[in-house]
């Protein structure tokens, strides 16, 4: 087993935060995000030990996304329960509008959220998202379309429109 520890450590340092962030966007939970990132990096290390992936970062991302999907499938009931009792996650820094949008994304169904996160956070094409999620291209397009439509709806509602809430406060 030959893994250059220094090289992997550098890879780890470069990827940990990125993967945690992706995990946070997918799950909305800091602890789950860390768990997913660690698991993805451990599995990447073992893969690396056997045969270095062509693109270790893409491999780690793929492990994380698949692991997240597996967890969703296996623990649907538990996840729904946890979602109700979950402590508020770390919000991303940014302006008020970005925060509102981020919260709206968190409120999307898991598959729509995953598609939008991979499309607009990871900058993947729809075909790449389809491959990564193991879904037909048409399904990905449809999920993206419905996700964006739902976001437009939600952003149009008074609860989520920052300009509306600011106006209300100003009154």
């Amino acid at each position, binding site marked *: 087993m030959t893994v250059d520890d220094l090289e992997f*450590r550098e890879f780890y340092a470069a990827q940990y935060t*990125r993967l945690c962030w992706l995990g946070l966007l997918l799950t909305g939970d800091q602890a789950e995000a860390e768990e997913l990132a660690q698991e993805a990096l451990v599995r990447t290390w073992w893969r690396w030990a056997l045969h270095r992936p062509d693109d270790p970062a893409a491999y780690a991302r793929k492990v994380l996304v698949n692991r997240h999907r597996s967890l969703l499938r296996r*623990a649907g*009931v538990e996840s729904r329960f946890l979602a109700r*009792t979950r402590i508020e996650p770390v919000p*991303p820094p*940014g302006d008020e509008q*970005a925060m509102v*949008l981020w919260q709206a994304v968190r409120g999307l169904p898991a598959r729509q959220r995953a598609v939008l996160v991979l499309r607009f*956070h990871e900058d993947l094409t729809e075909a790449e998202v389809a491959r990564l999620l193991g879904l037909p291209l048409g399904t990905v397009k449809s999920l993206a379309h419905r996700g964006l439509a739902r976001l437009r709806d939600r952003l149009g509602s008074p609860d989520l429109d920052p300009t509306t809430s600011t106006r209300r406060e100003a009154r």
Partner: protein
Amino acid sequence: MTQEPQLEDRLRAALRRPEGSPWPEEHGAFDQFLHRRSRRGRALAARGALAVVVAVALVVGLPRLLPSRPVVPATPPLTGRLLQMPAGGFEVTVPAGWTDLSRSRRIVTPGSELGSGVALRPMRRAANTMVMLYTGTLSSVQYPGTEPGGGGPDSSFSTDQASDRLEDRGGPLGRGRRPDGRPYVWQQTRLGTNQVARYAIAWPYQCTPQQACPPGARWRVLLVDGVSEEGPATRRRVLEVTRRIVDTVRPITNALPGGALGSVDLAVPPVKGRWLLGTGGRGRGAWRASILQDAEDVFALEFPQRRPAAAQRAEVIEPTILIAGQLGVLNDCLSWLRPQAGLVSGVVPENVTTLRISIAGKPPLTVRAFGHGQPARWAAFVSPPLARGTRVTRVVALDASGRTVAESEPDPTLSHPVCHVFR
């Protein structure tokens, strides 16, 4: 006139990670990674050991089943001929166009034992193409169904298979049930290997009251392996035949109640198995601690009442650590309980009677070891439920005279607050 940014652009900006911002708990993350990596290594080693056992069995068994010269069928082809293997407790109808190649009464390997076997091959020559049937007692953890005579479902054969999808180099796995109700597990294999499919059918040895039943007899399985080095068409055909055999192979002699043959399979050396050390906990936090013995000893802490599915924590016991006076301690979170609670557990040498668990900011807990006097020759301990956030700092194992036998090794996860990350 400024144009309103598109929703896609706003989304891209909102989801963007701020450059240079560290993750809140990045400090210490790499230590956690190293620990998790070594844990996974041990788990992989355990699985690898099991795979080696199966591989060794095949390597040892195949030369006996395969003649060294090109095959010349010893018996004329007979459609629907019944072939009986009394020692293995099964009879099989040889499919049309197939014949039996070789029989072996018993194949014994250091890590496992296999009972009687037979290989069937097509009459038309095909490279290394056959269906092998043989009884084996590989391990209680591989048993495909409910423990004979009671007990709960054994979920360990295929636990976590979904999460290992990326690393699974084989094909799909699954469970099924024969028309007579016997459960089985199966695995198909992708092109590129010569194994097409493997089925393991629950085939418990039925001991008569007069017999001293070997410990592993109840965990016996009938393995049906389809093998071919030919192309997809032949492999499909082998798969079909394998499936048909799985559905039609019948139990006889020692696989039927009261039908055991006195001295055939009982002559094999006793197999390792599963020893229950103790039970505890309540409700959905109820646990069952066992030692599973196979190529290596495994400490298993099962939570049969967990919902939506039972959970199992299994860890390979590393005797060298205990001999060196160190103690491997597991720190688990019962994340399905409300409120969540943690358990600290582990395996100790038999001479340990109590454990002292030090907790940050609180008086130490004293826990009794249990499970002494078992053939497994290990004892275990499980703490009472610990509140979320509890920080265990040290665990010391003591013998009856109060002498220290072993201490917890320096371990970042042990001192990690209960239920914080590792859940």
